C-alpha cells in the first residue's frame, strides 16, 4: 500500500487535473521554462522562415563574399550576420536551417519512438524468443558508438539528408525499445492489468489501451531528449559530409569545410554552431524539467 492511500483526503481545493499538475511542477523549473521558450521561438522561426528570411538561403551574392556582420567594419544591413565564402546570406541560411533541424528532430523522434515502442511492447508481451531476439539486437546496436553506427548506415544507404535521418532514427531506437520494455514489464505485474485480462481484453487492447498509456511518462522524456540527440547527430553527419549535402542550409553542413575560414571569417565558423548549441541545450533543459515533472519517483 502506498503512502498516498493512507493520507486523509483533504476537504478543501480539489486536486489539480493531471495536465495542470505536470505543468505546475514543470513551471517551477526556470531552466525548463527557458528551454521551452527557446524551442517555441525556434519553431516559430522554422514555420515562418519564408517570411522572416531576407534572402534565399542558396542565392549567391557575388559582390559580398565573406562580408562581415553589420556591427563590424565593412558590414552592411542587407546581410545582418554577414555572408559565407560564396556570398550566401548567413542569417537566411540559419533561419532555413532552423526549419531543417526541427523537421529532422520531428521525423527522427517519430520514427524511433513509434518503432521503438512497438518493439519494446512486443518484447514485454511476447517474452521468450521474441524478447531475447529483440533485446540482443538492441545490445549489439548499443555496443557500437552511436555516431559510428550512423556513419556505417549512411555508408550503406549513401550520403544525404534523408538517409542521415533514417540512420539517426535507427541509432536512437534501442533507447526507446529498452524504456518501453522496462515500463511495460513493470506495468504488466500490476493488478489492473490482470483484471483487464480477466475482463476479457484481447492482446492488442491490453497492449495499447491498458498498458501503453501508463508507460508514456518515460517515453515522453526520452522523446524530448531524442530531439536534441537527433539534431546533434544529424549535424555531426552533415559536418562529416555524410548528411545533408551543400547547398542545403543544414547547420552541421554549414560548418563542414569552415575550418579554412577560421583565420579570416569567424562568423562563418561560430554562428551555425551557436544555433546548434542553443537549440540542443533548450531541448535538454526541457527534457530535464519534464523528467522531474513527470517522474513520480522524483516528486516531492
Amino acid at each position, binding site marked *: 500500500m502506498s503512502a498516498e492511500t493512507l493520507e486523509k483526503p483533504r476537504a478543501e481545493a480539489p486536486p489539480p487535473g493531471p495536465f495542470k499538475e505536470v505543468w505546475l511542477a514543470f513551471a517551477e523549473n526556470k531552466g525548463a521554462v527557458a528551454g521551452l521558450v527557446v524551442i517555441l521561438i525556434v519553431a516559430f522561426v522554422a514555420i515562418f522562415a519564408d517570411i522572416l528570411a531576407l534572402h534565399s538561403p542558396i542565392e549567391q551574392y557575388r559582390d559580398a563574399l565573406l562580408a562581415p556582420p553589420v556591427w563590424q567594419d565593412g558590414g552592411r544591413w542587407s546581410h545582418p550576420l554577414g555572408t559565407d565564402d560564396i556570398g550566401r546570406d548567413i542569417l537566411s541560411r540559419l533561419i532555413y536551417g532552423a526549419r531543417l533541424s526541427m523537421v529532422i528532430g520531428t521525423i527522427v523522434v517519430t520514427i524511433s519512438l513509434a518503432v521503438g515502442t512497438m518493439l519494446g511492447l512486443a518484447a514485454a508481451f511476447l517474452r521468450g524468443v521474441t524478447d531475447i531476439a529483440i533485446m540482443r539486437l538492441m545490445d549489439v546496436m548499443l*555496443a557500437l558508438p552511436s555516431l*559510428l553506427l550512423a556513419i556505417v548506415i549512411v555508408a550503406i544507404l549513401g550520403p544525404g539528408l534523408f538517409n542521415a535521418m533514417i540512420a539517426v532514427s535507427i541509432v536512437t531506437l534501442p533507447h526507446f525499445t529498452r524504456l518501453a520494455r522496462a515500463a511495460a514489464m513493470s506495468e504488466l505485474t500490476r493488478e489492473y492489468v490482470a483484471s483487464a485480462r480477466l475482463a476479457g481484453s484481447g492482446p492488442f487492447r491490453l497492449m495499447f489501451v491498458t498498458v501503453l498509456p501508463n508507460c508514456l511518462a518515460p517515453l515522453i522524456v526520452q522523446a524530448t531528449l531524442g530531439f536534441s540527440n537527433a539534431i546533434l547527430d544529424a549535424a555531426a553527419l552533415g559536418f562529416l559530409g555524410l548528411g545533408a549535402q551543400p547547398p542545403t542550409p543544414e547547420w552541421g553542413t554549414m560548418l563542414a569545410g569552415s575550418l579554412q575560414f577560421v583565420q579570416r571569417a569567424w562568423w562563418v565558423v561560430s554562428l551555425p554552431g551557436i544555433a546548434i548549441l542553443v537549440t540542443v*541545450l533548450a531541448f535538454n533543459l526541457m527534457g530535464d524539467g519534464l523528467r522531474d515533472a513527470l517522474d513520480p519517483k522524483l516528486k516531492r
Partner: protein
Amino acid sequence: MLRFILTRASLIVPTFLGIMLLSFVLIRLVPGDPIEVRMGERGITPERHAQLLHQYGLDRPLWQQFASYVGQVARGDLGVSIITKSPVIKEFAALFPATLELGAAAMLFAILFGLPAGIIAAVRRGSVFDHTLMGVSLTGYSMPIFWWGLLLILLFSVELGLTPVSGRLAAAFFVEPKTGFLLIDSLLSDEKGAFKSAARHLILPTIVLGTIPLAVIARMTRSSMLEVLNEDYIRTARAKGLGTFRVVALHALRNALIPVVTVIGLQVGSLLGGAILTETIFSWPGIGSWLVESINRRDYPVLQGGILLVASLVMLVNLAVDLLYGVLNPRIRR
C-alpha cells in the same frame, strides 16, 4: 565471486556473435557484391567475376560464408584493406595507440575536473557554484563537439597562437615509435623539445573530446553524492563530530563513487564516437579518422574489421565495468 565473473562474461558471447553477424551483413548490404567493390571503377569480365566469386567462396550458401568468416575472425584475420593492401588488424594496431592516448588524456581531464566539481556542487548544494556548474555542464553536454573544436582552434591557435592546429607532433621532430604513445616515445627519444611539442598538440583535442564526459561525470557525481549525503550513516558521522572534509572524503565519497564508476565506463563508447569527430577536426592519425577515410574511399574490409574491433572493445570495457561494479558493491553479486 568467480561464479559472478563467469556469468557476466558468458553473457557477452551472444552479443559478440551478434556484432560479428552485423559486420558480416553490413558488407553484403552495400550495393554491388564484394568483388565489384574490390575491383572498383576498373570493371571486370563476367567470367573473371564468377571465378573470383568462387575463389573467395562467395558462391556458397550464406550460413557457410558466415561460419568461415567466424573462423577467420577467430584466427585474427580481419581481411586486407583494398587501398593499402595491408592487413586490417595491422593497420588498427598501428593507429590505435594514437586514439588510446587521446582517449586516455580526455578521460583523465574529465575525471580530474568533473569529480571535484561534482563533489563541491553537492556539498554546497544550491550555492552559486552549484548553479553555475549545473548550467555549464548541461551546456557542455549539449555541445556539438566538432564546432567546439573549431571554436577552440579559433581562440587558442589563431587568436592567441598558443597551440598547433593539427597532427600529433611538429614536423621538425622525428620520434621513433616504440610504444605508439607519443608522450612516452618522445621522452624516451633524445629529441629535445619533442615531448613539449607532443603535449601541446594533445591539449586541444583532449579538451574537445573530454568535454562531454566531463559534463556527464560532474552531473553524476553531484547527484550520487547528494543521495549519499542524505544517508543516516553520514548523519552519524557528523554527529560524532567529524569535520566536513573527513565525512565527505572518507565516508560519503566511497559509496558515491559506485554509480560514477559505471558512468565513466559507459562513456568509453561515446568517447570512441567522439574520437571520430575530434580526430577529423585535428587530423589526428587514429582509429576515428581511419574509419571515416575508409568510408570516403569505399574501403569496406577496413570498415568491417574496424567496426568489429571497436564494438568488441566497447563490449569488453562494459564487461570490465560490470565486474568492477560487483567488486565495489557486493550487494549486486548474486
